[in-house]
């Protein structure tokens, strides 16, 4: 989705699952933009771009793999594109299951897969308008 993920979107996603009464546990991961210091300059925002067709394909593959690996009821993934300012949310991963361990494990697994496999690129925009390209650790 374009820009930051608003907290209301997260509330709506949770509310949308209240009719699914086989769910006993939700696990949510949120990535938030940190105001890191890079050579004395503070990060103001990250500009995200992606190889969009491939990213969508990979998101789909990861989601399918998660459903065959974990006994989940639901899984949702949202990643920002475009500019996301420090303090704002850029990644929202949401898993639900009858039991907590499955929801938690599935959520963690999805986060690691997304970081490793989805062609998303991040440009850390510094206070003097210079930038540096972000690399996942």
């Amino acid at each position, binding site marked *: 989705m374009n820009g930051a993920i608003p907290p209301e979107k997260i509330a709506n996603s949770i509310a949308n699952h209240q009719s699914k009464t086989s769910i006993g546990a939700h696990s949510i991961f949120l*990535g938030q933009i940190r105001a890191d210091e890079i050579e004395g300059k503070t990060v103001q925002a*990250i500009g*995200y*771009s*992606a*190889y969009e*067709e*491939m990213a969508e*394909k990979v998101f789909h593959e990861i989601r399918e793999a998660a459903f065959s690996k974990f006994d989940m009821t639901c899984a949702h993934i949202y*990643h920002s594109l475009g500019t996301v300012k420090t303090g704002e949310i*850029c*990644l929202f991963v949401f898993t639900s299951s009858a039991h907590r361990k499955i929801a938690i494990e599935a959520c963690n697994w999805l*986060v690691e897969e*997304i*970081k*490793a*496999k*989805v*062609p*998303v*690129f*991040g*440009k850390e925009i510094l206070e003097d308008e210079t930038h540096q*390209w*972000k*690399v*996942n650790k």
Partner: protein
Amino acid sequence: MKVNVKYFGQVAEAAGKTEEKLELEKGASLKEFKLKQIKQYQIPDPDSVQIAVNQDLVDDKELTEGDEIAFLPPFAGG
């Protein structure tokens, strides 16, 4: 044969473009093509650049007509 080449992130920055259509010799190898582009555009940190052909990551292969070849710098999702 024609191929469609895409550049992303800092590779696009180095190349000064995000996309170009190129004419390659039939049966050209991906590895050689990659090296050539890295040299031509002085792409930084070339060991970290991955290539996707038609949206699948590959190390090397024989390229074919109409391939979409994407130069991908390190991923930074999340």
